[in-house]
């Protein structure tokens, strides 16, 4: 602090506590609702202090939508996306930074262009190609051979983990991040590796990968949250209940107009759905902040 401002300092702390209360409010009230019996939660106004039904409601939510299965699906999808994004982008960044080859700039431009095509703007055709991921190749072969070969191959990704993960793992931002980091690594390291006649892949695994550990950790946290919070894509590609993610499962629990709304159970479900990603951010906060700021550069 530059000058002594005791009153302003006090105001600062009071204000920050108010901010936290404001931000916490929805989750606090959801927690209260999740601890009440259904009659209490539907009385107006609802009690503002927790009741004793938390575990009953959690169990009810767990049983209603097969949340265990959906938590598992979310976990697979989020980890798969984090892992996949990191693997394919670190390999691409390695190729672009450490090799000189024809079409290098083209490859870079193609990766860059993917920034401009978020899944939300190509919903229907992406869904169609997911129903048969071989479509582009079949079209290519049929065109090249003038339609003489009629291919009936199908690779249907709907209702599979591959379908949930693969379309979301291309990452221009992660590729840029790794490239930028590789550019800061001293050339002498690669030079030394070459003199010691290490192959490029040996250099990659023994030197580049260990040096990238912090960047990988930071990206993994961000990408995990990104994957966990996906909504539109799992909504489209999973039609079977046992393939839904928990974010979708919670939406299916939302009360309909005609039944008595069991908000206590729904909010218990919401708590289950939001706990894992919130825990990840709170526990791995350092990596999360680094990843968030780095990946937007």
């Amino acid at each position, binding site marked *: 602090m530059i000058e002594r401002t005791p009153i302003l300092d006090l105001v600062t702390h009071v204000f920050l506590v108010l901010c936290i209360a404001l931000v916490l409010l929805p989750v606090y009230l959801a927690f209260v609702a999740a601890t009440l019996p259904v009659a209490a939660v539907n009385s107006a106004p609802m009690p503002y202090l927790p009741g004793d039904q938390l575990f009953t409601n959690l169990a009810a939510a767990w049983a209603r939508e097969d949340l265990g299965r959906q938590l598992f699906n979310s976990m697979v999808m989020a980890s798969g996306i984090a892992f996949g994004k990191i693997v394919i982008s670190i390999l691409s960044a390695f190729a*672009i930074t450490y090799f000189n080859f024809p079409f290098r700039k083209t490859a870079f431009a193609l990766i860059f262009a993917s920034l401009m095509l*978020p899944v939300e703007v190509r919903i229907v*055709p992406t869904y169609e190609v997911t129903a048969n991921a071989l479509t582009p190749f079949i079209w290519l072969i049929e065109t090249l051979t003038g339609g003489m070969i009629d291919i009936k191959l199908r690779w249907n990704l709907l209702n599979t983990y591959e379908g949930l993960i693969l379309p979301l793992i291309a990452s221009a931002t992660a590729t840029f991040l790794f490239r930028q980091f590789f550019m800061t690594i001293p050339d002498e390291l690669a030079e030394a590796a070459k003199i010691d006649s290490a192959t490029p892949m040996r250099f990659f695994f023994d030197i580049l990968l260990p040096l990238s550990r912090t960047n990988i950790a930071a990206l993994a946290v961000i990408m995990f949250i990104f994957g966990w919070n996906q909504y539109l894509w799992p909504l489209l590609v999973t039609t079977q209940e046992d393939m839904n993610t928990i974010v979708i499962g*919670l939406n299916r629990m939302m009360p309909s107009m005609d039944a008595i709304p069991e908000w206590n159970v729904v909010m218990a479900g919401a708590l289950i759905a939001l706990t894992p990603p919130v825990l990840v951010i709170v526990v791995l906060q350092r990596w999360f902040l680094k990843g968030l700021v780095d990946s937007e550069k």
Partner: protein
Amino acid sequence: MSKSVIFGNRWLPYLLLLPQLLVLLVFFFWPAAQALIQSFMISDAFGNTSTFVWFQNFTRLFKSQEYWDSIRVTIVFSVLTGGLALSLGLLFAIFADRVIRGTAFYKTLLIWPYAVAPATAGALWLFLLNPTMGVLAYLMNKQLGIHWDPTLNRADGMALVVLASAWKQISYNFVFFLAGMQSIPRSIIEAAAIDGARPVKRLFTIVLPLLSPTTFFLLVMNSVYAFFDTFGIIDTTTDGGPGGATSILVYKVYRDGFVGLDLGSSSAQSVILMGFVIALTFVQFRYVERMVHYKS
């Protein structure tokens, strides 16, 4: 662009790039091309035949009142959400930047809404604001005499999705504003203090002007968020209603394509949105890079 020390290998770089390029080809460029093609076609109801119709899908779109309504809704929604999330994020950051002890504590408690999925945030706010027993709806009715009903009143529906969307985005803006403030050199602030500038004066004459690159960057990111990432919030809370009052452009693409099965119109809308994203990306890379005033 590449290192001065490079490896010589003819095939390896292509092999390394292959996974990313395959994913891009199958799930990005092919669908984008399909959207472009379909936006010039009209298919019959069974999807058997399609006819090339030039710009008919686009002209039909721009003649429909519904589409213009959706554009207006999207703009109002983005401005309100972005305005609310940016101003609160900035306010939180200004105060958090003043704290010497306990910064980590405040930070932890302010960043976690980032982890909540938009669809889950929608569920939380729908619970607070549903007209029958929502706590906030009850208080508004009792204390302020407002007959709040987001299922019937257009403004209430908009307020519901704006609150849920802004709540989730505050922490993102907070993190970037705080990082921006903490990278302003202490010496500048100290020099101003010696010259007699009090904290409020310093905020307006030094901190905020030096934050302009961060603010500009966040403006772009908040537009992207409001345009695309809020789909889950709208789908859990209002379904685009009441009467299309919260049907933002992305939600309309989804409804027309998957519920209405009007592929031509849905693709034309996709193409227009793609144009918007390309323009935003251009603005971001063209101007954000240039507007950096300071180095840490």
